[in-house]
């Protein structure tokens, strides 16, 4: 049924041949109109909302003016000035950045070690591989909910700490909440880096290992001089994507810590959400969203560069 449906969408009658034929001299015309639906949809659902988001960030829009948002008072850069001055935006930027980087730093060694441990054949390897994916493929809202339950004051975490004579504590409020959030996200995300590292390992030709063996390399030297240089590209992309995803992660902090989020773990996406949909300061929220987009663009540009290299490499 999945295969049947799209067939009906592609109209069988031949289109009028496209007049311009630069590029590849192929026969049968260039049905470029095939991409118009995609382009139109991209414009309608992303480009227009995007422009409206920028517009919103320049007006004083709240729940009272929402009904007539084109007549909302234009206040130029006041929302931006408030974002940087009176609001806790900079605090959130710092929290999100620390959270994203720390999570990636903690998850990376786990992922790389896991990939290397699974690079040899052994009985039950397929099972272990699947098991390692579970934390990653569990929906974030489930992960967050389970950990919220484990980390509550009378929960299993404090119970287990008690066995070792450690006094239980509040994990989900106050200063600890930042570390709870980091811990849970490391738990949920290390398999991503494991998969990226594994994909890199599978591209290493066997001769390199043979050569290392013949040269009498120890396993540490093998990691350092064969494995890490060989998976570098794949790994860097993984680290970047991972950091980006943590920075953007809304679900995990939102479900794990609830709203209003504790000050120590008020990440940027949750902050924008609270400003927009709980305080109903849409204008201010819009300004904060635009600022966070600009911040996101810095790593995104690096990402584009990285993927452009491969986009070119993958072609013809």
């Amino acid at each position, binding site marked *: 049924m999945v295969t049947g449906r799209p067939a009906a969408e592609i109209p069988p009658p031949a289109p009028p041949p496209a007049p311009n034929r630069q590029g590849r001299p192929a026969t049968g015309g260039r049905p470029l109109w095939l991409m118009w639906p995609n382009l139109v949809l991209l414009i309608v659902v992303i480009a227009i909302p995007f422009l409206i988001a920028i517009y919103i960030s320049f007006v004083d829009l709240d729940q009272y003016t929402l009904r007539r948002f084109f007549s909302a008072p234009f206040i130029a850069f006041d929302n931006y000035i408030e974002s940087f001055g009176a609001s806790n935006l900079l605090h959130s930027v710092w929290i999100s950045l620390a959270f994203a980087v720390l999570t990636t730093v903690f998850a990376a060694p786990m992922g790389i070690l896991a990939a290397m441990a699974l690079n040899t054949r052994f009985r039950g390897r397929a099972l272990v591989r699947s098991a390692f994916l579970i934390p990653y493929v569990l929906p974030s809202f489930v992960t967050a909910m389970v950990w919220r339950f484990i980390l509550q004051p009378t929960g299993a975490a404090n119970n287990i700490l008690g066995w070792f004579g450690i006094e239980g504590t509040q994990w989900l409020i106050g200063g600890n909440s930042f570390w709870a959030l980091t811990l849970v996200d490391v738990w949920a995300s290390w398999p991503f880096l494991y998969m990226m590292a594994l994909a890199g390992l599978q591209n290493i030709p066997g001769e390199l290992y043979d050569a290392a063996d*013949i040269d009498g390399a120890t396993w540490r030297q093998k990691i350092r001089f064969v494995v890490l240089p060989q998976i570098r590209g794949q790994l860097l992309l993984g680290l970047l994507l991972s950091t980006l995803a943590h920075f953007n992660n809304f679900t995990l902090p939102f479900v794990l810590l609830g709203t209003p989020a504790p000050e120590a773990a008020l990440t940027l996406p949750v902050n924008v959400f609270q400003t*927009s949909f709980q305080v109903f300061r849409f204008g201010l929220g819009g300004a904060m969203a635009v600022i966070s987009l600009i911040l996101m663009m810095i790593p995104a540009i690096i990402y584009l560069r990285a993927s452009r290299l491969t986009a070119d490499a993958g072609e013809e």
Partner: protein
Amino acid sequence: MTVIERRPASRDPQRILPRWLQWTVITLLLLTLLPVLYMLIIAFSPDVEAAQGVLWPSEFEFGNWGAVWTTVDLAGGLFNSLVAAFTAGVIATVFGLGAAYCLTRFTFFGRKLYLNSLVGLQSVPGVMIILPLFVMFSSFGNAIGIQLVGTRPALIITYLTFAIPFATWLLVTYLRQIPISFEEAAMIDGLSRFGALRKIIFPLAVPGMIISLVFSLLVGWNDVLFATVLTAPETQTVAVKLQVFAASTESGALPLYGQLMVASLISSAPVVILYMIFQRQLVGGLSAGGEKG
């Protein structure tokens, strides 16, 4: 030869870590999966013991699995999630295929920009998209007298914002692997461009389309942000239903942790199963941008 034989530890040339370290790593990482097991245990535990953080219940409680369906509208949530995520996935895949075909087969003005946008758009923060969409839906809804916020189409439109760039990009990476010579051969043999598209490309692209549909569906299923803002009680996806239920459980007089864990397990089961089936493609899809760095 003798050099190699002196080192029995490296029989398998692919082996990197020594055996002891390999098994330490595997064991430790498997131990981190205990919370998943704990979820399962609590699903069979009495609520009072679960609330005290007991690791193993004094007796198993099977009632949770039946009671949860009436305590919370779980079936409705699952249905809403499926409808919204599946519809968005189908639309994105169908529209994505046309664009992916052009992007991989022709060169034209703006092609590079288009490809880069597809990648870049995937990193746009969700809060940046949901805010204008919410404002648009509520003010246009007011203007034409129809309530849009809380309806299914509104939710599907927001899911398209990530499903389209994602599905299109995935299909671009997929179609790129189908050699152009296949179509050229078919066209030399007398098929039209569309004949080649229908008879050659389309059948070859079906696996890619299934993958794009499945992964778009999964991203939609896991969404919390859009569904929290845009759904009413009767259109709530399972993610939101679960959260409302969790909140009521925590603040209520009697905790329903057992049922909460049952609901969590049920709502993650389809996702986990789909991921396990498409495990190989998951790795390929994730690293689609960077086969070689």
